[in-house]
């Protein structure tokens, strides 16, 4: 047994080389490998800096960062959703970054005021409707979907998904808890089927005629549209007459105990730059955060919209309240 431990220690030491030969950045990522790897490969080509990474869900990665403390190998945390970013910042694992470049590339509502995290792509959560049974003038806002005229016509994804939690958190920020709960209760009363496990399933239910309208992230719609170009569904930008459509981000921050803080900051700056943004957002049909970069052609074809300018830190802060609210309202 002791020999086993000894050899394990030896192997472990070999696997965690302390020597820094080439410049390196270590990334913990909740963004999926096929969305980040092509960019990392390009970065290595351009700069010679190699990037090692592991991917997992945001929760476990954050837990791991906290447990590892000052000895963490991670230099950067990439994750999706404002709630996750807010929690990462709140638990003290991210460093405050002062980077004029990042401040210029990322609009203020899409980053932490203290510079602990920066949005890298924007994801818009809005309505998708059946072009056979709904006309766009019947649609208006998230709030309106609680109206009894949509009874038996609404499909939603499960409340366990963080995207819906952030959406409801934004409703709370806008209307207060009481009003927000009324809205969510209205949605639940209008449901045509039990909540779905993902956005694509909800859209397929609309297409098949189980319901008429649903709320999804636009890139899921883009993917479905790419596969079935003549699909009888369309996007509708919600709340154009009021708060603007709900946006969320995927984003990243440099860890507080980074071993390569400068290299990590440079990587983050590069990811927000004109060179990287088109691919970072485009590969998943999201919107670039950098205002000087145009979205992918498919995405641009969906038209312009007014976005909700609520600072995403608010959505993060209210996330737990949103979950409790949805539990009370019986939204599963």
């Amino acid at each position, binding site marked *: 047994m002791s020999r086993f431990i000894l050899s*394990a*220690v030896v*192997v*472990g*030491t070999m*696997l*965690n080389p*302390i020597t820094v030969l080439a410049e390196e950045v*270590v990334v913990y990522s909740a963004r*999926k*490998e*096929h969305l980040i790897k092509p960019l990392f490969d390009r970065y290595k080509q351009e700069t010679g800096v190699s990037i*090692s*990474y*592991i*991917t*997992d*869900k*945001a*929760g*476990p*990665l*954050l*837990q*791991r960062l906290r*447990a*590892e*403390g000052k*000895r*963490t*190998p991670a230099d950067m945390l990439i994750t999706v959703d404002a709630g996750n970013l807010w*929690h990462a910042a709140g*638990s003290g694992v991210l460093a405050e970054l002062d980077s004029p470049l990042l401040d210029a590339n990322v609009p203020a509502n899409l980053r932490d005021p203290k510079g602990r995290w920066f949005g890298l792509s924007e994801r818009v959560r809005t309505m998708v409707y059946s072009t056979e049974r709904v006309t766009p003038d019947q649609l208006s806002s998230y709030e309106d979907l609680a109206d009894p005229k949509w009874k038996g016509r609404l499909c939603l994804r*499960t409340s*366990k998904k*963080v995207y819906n*939690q952030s959406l409801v958190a934004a409703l709370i920020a806008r209307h207060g808890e009481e009003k927000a709960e009324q809205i969510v209760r209205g949605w639940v009363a209008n449901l045509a*089927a*039990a*909540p*779905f*496990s*993902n*956005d*694509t*399933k909800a859209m*397929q*239910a609309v*297409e*098949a*005629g*189980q319901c008429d309208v649903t709320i999804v992230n636009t890139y*899921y719609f883009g*993917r479905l549209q790419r596969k079935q170009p003549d699909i009888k569904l369309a996007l509708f930008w919600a709340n154009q007459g009021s708060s603007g459509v709900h946006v969320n981000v995927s984003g990243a921050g440099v860890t507080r105990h980074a071993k390569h803080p400068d290299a990590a900051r440079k990587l983050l700056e590069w990811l927000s730059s004109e060179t990287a943004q088109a691919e970072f957002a485009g590969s998943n049909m999201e919107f670039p955060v950098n205002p000087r970069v145009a979205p992918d052609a498919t995405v641009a074809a969906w038209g312009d919209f007014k976005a909700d300018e609520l600072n995403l830190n608010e959505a993060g802060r209210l*996330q*737990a309240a949103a*979950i*409790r609210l949805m*539990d009370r309202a019986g939204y*599963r």
Partner: protein
Amino acid sequence: MRDEGRGPSLSDTSTLAPGAPVLVVRSAPDRTWRWAARLLAISVLIPLAVILGSWLFFDPEIWSHLGTTVLPRLLLNTFWLVAGVGFGTLLLGVPLAWLTVMCDFPGRRILDWALMLPFALPAYVLAFVFVGVLDFAGPLQGGLRGLLGLPPAWSFEVRNTPGVITVMTLVLYPYVYMLARVAFLGQGQSAYEAGRSLGLGPWAAFFRVSLPMARPAVIAGLSLALMEALADFGAVSVFNFDTFTTAIYKSWFGFFDLQSAAQLASILLTIVLVALVVERRFRDRARFTESGRGGTQRRMRLQGGRAIAASLFGWGVLFLAFAAPVVRLTTWAWGALEDLDLRYLDLFVHTLSLGVMAGVLTVSAAFVLAFAHRYHGDYSTALSVRISTLGYALPGSVLAVGVMLSLTWFDNRLADAVEWLSGEDMGLVLSGTVVALLMAYFARFLAVAYGPVDSSLERIRPSIRDAARSLGAGQWETVWRVYLPMLRPGLLTAGLLVLVDVMKEMPATLLLRPFGWDTLAVRIYELTSEGEWERAALPAVALLVVGLVPVILLVRKSAH
């Protein structure tokens, strides 16, 4: 260990009462075995203790919220899941094992091994295929509506409790089938025929002789199936079905409250512990042992309607649990073939090597535990066994966090000590290596290995050991030259079960794998978490292919 263990010792009286720990004199081998069992239990207990330690902090706000909103439904759902899956896996597993071992009917030879194949299919994969094909928007209902011109209002719901139970049953019955099958094979025909010759009818002989004799194996299979059902996250989330696991995830990811998540997990753990203790209480004290290989050549040849019914039953289960979903998956994978690249080679190698390492480690530990318990056990050994086999009932990610927290803590203290001594920070040397991952697999899958090892140990007649001893074989020699060879089928079954389970394992692999150690399950996660199920079919099929190799080995080794 010096020379204490060598040579037959007159003071070792445990041979008089194997399995029943009544010991007059405490001998050296006893102590060695017991300490080994305790050490194994402790290595599982540490991550569990981290989870249980969560009760030191109590957030009344979250608990009153959970209690008033989700907990009642959670308990009810969990009850139905356990009852339904328990009933379902018994209903499929036991009769199918009986039919393929004891009877003869058209297709028996194929079904005998083919019925184990669904074991290679991860639950979340079957769940997705099931919902994808049968839900409102799926091809079946859509096709029927189109064909018969039915209005959209005509539909049936599959994303409900019966749906979840069906999928779980189809995925988990192989546990019961495999273990029951081995037990029936071991009994041979003779016990059953003895029953018949004493005037019992065929059903009575089955229920009063064969089934009670196979009961330890059936219970072992059943508890594995139920623990996996309780710990499952992937399949229940496809159905959006709320269980303890989903509530644990929600507390953790939603409220970012690991404490409440761990508290929920420890409630789950308590339920399982109580169930296991109750089961033990009710289990007969009787022991059944093999009386040599009964000739299975005289199978009961089923005739006419019975033969057709048996055949339809077997093929029907195989079709639903394996053939149909695999065809669906393969067509999806065919469409995603452009994703196939050289990296799949790495994925294969990682998947397999992790499975093999974990298999060897876990089975060795299971053998030590089972042997210590049967022949050198006292109450503390029984407790060690209980503790060591609890890990399987916990959701993989919770256990993984337990392992990660305890190991990282130890690692940090180790680095602190080295830094204090040498002034140099050597960083973390254990976490983030294969060691962490193996610890998690070990804690999680020890129960899987223990079941088959223990139930095959149970069938070895104590007299064999006495015979070996009386012929002058020492303690370790008896283990090495008598028990290990006799246990080979059981050990192999255990190893292959763990191998397949590790290859399908997702959450612990995700959290604890070293950089670059991606497996096929990780690849599946990457795609499914973004809802790209059809692309995920490619790694899923690859996983199925790798998983089928051990399953087929399992089949060949356990066939006689």
